[in-house]
């Protein structure tokens, strides 16, 4: 029997060469930004594509890689599964470009469907890459192996995608995921569904200095309430309404010095809407300059409106918070000192959380997505013992 701990990449595709392609593109990205991207989005993408990070994805995400094929002794060859169908959500963000980069490293063909009601960032990113790459494996791959399309939900192409693909990756609602899963698909294929998830910050109010609040603003502002890894609320463990109010006011006071771009008019309008809905629900609201964000303070059992740039701040004991965590909780970003160990132990044993990471790492993409080893789904493992 082969040694399952020794993985070797198929020589049909050079993931490291492709990673170098992304890295060379990154150096062009530093000098030029497509207008479709906001500055924070482009900066996040550049940071994600740092040489050390992409290579680390291959070395650690794929498994303990030993060497390239051929290699002596028993091993497990990682072979791309074929075609990956990728359904992107309507509120597409960097998710399309990030997923494209990660899946590309596996050598699988990609058919990506952009949201039919969205302005998607995947297409401008591919166009930017094709324009600025001078040649090589990545350019060939993007030209020949990646298809990006936008069509309506009712299009027969939906079923055609599912029928062709060995892996279905879907981002969206539970209902839409079920519809995709119900489409006829190869019996050997598998589905990876990323449905509605929520995340939150747990903090010791004493540790929320300006640096921590600056991090909170950066982590929150990029997606607002729309990101599954974005804080949907801040919970002050063992805090109280006074501390929550103080945190909300300090975040608002700092906001425009951290996010210096003015909000889009519609974003500001929706923040105003959020503040009114929150007040009607019983929250007390602090509003950042230019309606860039709303901080809503209220007790933990109060349901907050889901408005993009509205961040509820509440307080709770650790025990009560664990008891009331939503079923679809994904990430807890922590700003906890010595109490962090106790919180970690308790939440791991009594909740279904998928990630417990420092606040600054809430949006970090790694090989584990929603508790699943993402890359395992993208390879067939060939057992070899010569």
């Amino acid at each position: 029997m082969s040694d399952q701990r020794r993985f070797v990449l198929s020589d049909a595709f050079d993931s490291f060469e492709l990673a170098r392609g992304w890295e060379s593109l990154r150096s062009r990205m530093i000098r030029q930004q497509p207008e479709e991207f906001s500055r924070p989005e482009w900066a996040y993408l550049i940071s994600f594509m740092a040489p050390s990070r992409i290579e680390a994805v291959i070395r650690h995400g794929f498994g303990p890689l030993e060497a390239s094929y051929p290699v002596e002794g028993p091993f497990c060859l990682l072979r791309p599964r074929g075609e990956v169908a990728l359904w992107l959500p309507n509120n597409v963000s960097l998710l399309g470009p990030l997923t494209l980069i990660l899946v590309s490293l596996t050598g699988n063909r990609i058919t990506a469907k952009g949201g039919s009601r969205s302005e998607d960032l995947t297409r401008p990113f591919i166009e930017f890459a094709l324009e600025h790459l001078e040649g090589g494996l990545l350019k060939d791959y993007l030209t020949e192996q990646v298809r990006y399309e936008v069509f309506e939900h009712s299009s027969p192409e939906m079923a055609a995608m599912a029928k062709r693909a060995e892996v279905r990756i879907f981002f969206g609602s539970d209902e839409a995921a079920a519809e995709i899963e119900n489409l006829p698909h190869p019996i050997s294929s598998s589905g990876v569904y990323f449905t509605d998830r929520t995340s939150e910050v747990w903090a010791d109010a004493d540790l929320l200095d300006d640096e921590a609040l600056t991090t909170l603003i950066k982590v929150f502002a990029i997606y607002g309430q729309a990101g599954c890894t974005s804080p949907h609320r801040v919970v002050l463990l063992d805090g109280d309404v006074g501390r929550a109010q103080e945190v909300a006011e300090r975040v608002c006071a700092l906001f425009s010095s951290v996010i210096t771009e003015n909000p889009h008019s519609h974003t500001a309008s929706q923040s105003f809407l959020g503040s009114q809905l929150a007040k009607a629900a019983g929250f007390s609201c602090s509003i950042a300059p230019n309606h860039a964000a709303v901080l809503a303070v209220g007790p933990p059992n109060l349901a907050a409106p889901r408005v993009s740039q509205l961040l509820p701040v509440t307080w709770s004991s650790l025990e009560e918070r664990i008891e009331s965590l939503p079923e679809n909780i994904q990430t807890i970003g922590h700003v906890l000192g010595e109490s962090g160990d106790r919180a970690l132990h308790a939440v791991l044993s009594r909740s279904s959380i998928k990630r417990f990471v420092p606040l600054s790492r809430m949006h970090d993409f790694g090989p584990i997505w929603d508790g699943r080893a993402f890359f395992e789904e993208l390879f067939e493992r060939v057992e070899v013992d010569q």
Partner: protein
Amino acid sequence: MSKLLAREPYGPRDDDVLLAELTHLTEHHDGGCAEYRAIAADAGPIRSVEDVPFLHVEVFKELRLETSFEGQESGRFLLSSATSGRHSQIRLDDKSSQLQSESTKKIFSSLLGEKQRPLIVLDSVTSLRQRGKISARIAAALSLRPLASDLLFALDDPEDPSSMRWEAIEAVLEQNDEVLVYGFSWILWTSWGKAELPNRVADAIAQTRVSFVHSGGWKKLEAEAVDRDRFDEALLSPAAPLSTVLDYYGLVEQVGVIYPLCESGYRHVPVWADVVVRDSLTHQALVGSPGQIQLLNSLAWGAPYHSVLTEDQGVIEPGPCPCGRSGRRFQLLGRLPRAEVRGCANV
């Protein structure tokens, strides 16, 4: 009751009276609607119309607001059309309905004359049959009822603009020199403007003076690259001389007050209403430069929709209008462009 409703809609304004009525309405809703009280709790004193607290238009999509008051008669809920899948719900109490009916009657009369004539509604009679609710389309059509001698619902299927009852329409046209036709803009275009009229209808309409009235915006028409000139020409060319097309702006969250487009391209504000344009970021009131439109009226008692911040953009034009109407006027610039919500899974 609004004293201002006794005046001509586009006559001299008495903004002191309007401000007093808006202030009274604000206090009325503050006393009778808990959600409004919570939202407007930190509002300052009202010294001018710009100080009147306003609700974001989408609050009515999320909350069913009602203001309790003595003698209140419970009414139906008016539902907006919902391109986003979510309806606004506006409570129609008897007192407000009476005022709103009087308001639209006076506005339409000033534009179309007071003569009664048959009203052809581009909708189906089945749209009337919703228990406890009334759609924006039907409400808009019925606001012309005071000018109608008779009513004809012209569609068999409310969702199918091609299901026109041409024989019934022909009969109305043959028996009358003048008719009113109301439809949502895109329905009027699809079912009538770009349709091939049956020969007998074409013959009849050539002898009939038609006042086409439409509302509901141009979004779907823009998708078909239909501009206003083409729209009006398609409607007017088959009809008898002196036929007209009237486009008005209105929203269910301001039911009873409509803003017709004048021949000079401006929307006019009746004396019992007002408009403020605000910077989206700071909410500073603007004159002469574009911003978000806030609409106010002194007719809304059953729920606090007397002052609403829309997500439409406009610009207030100072000075008198070339059309001769006095009072406030503005240009409607369309919807506030939507910011893409840039997140991941929760679509």
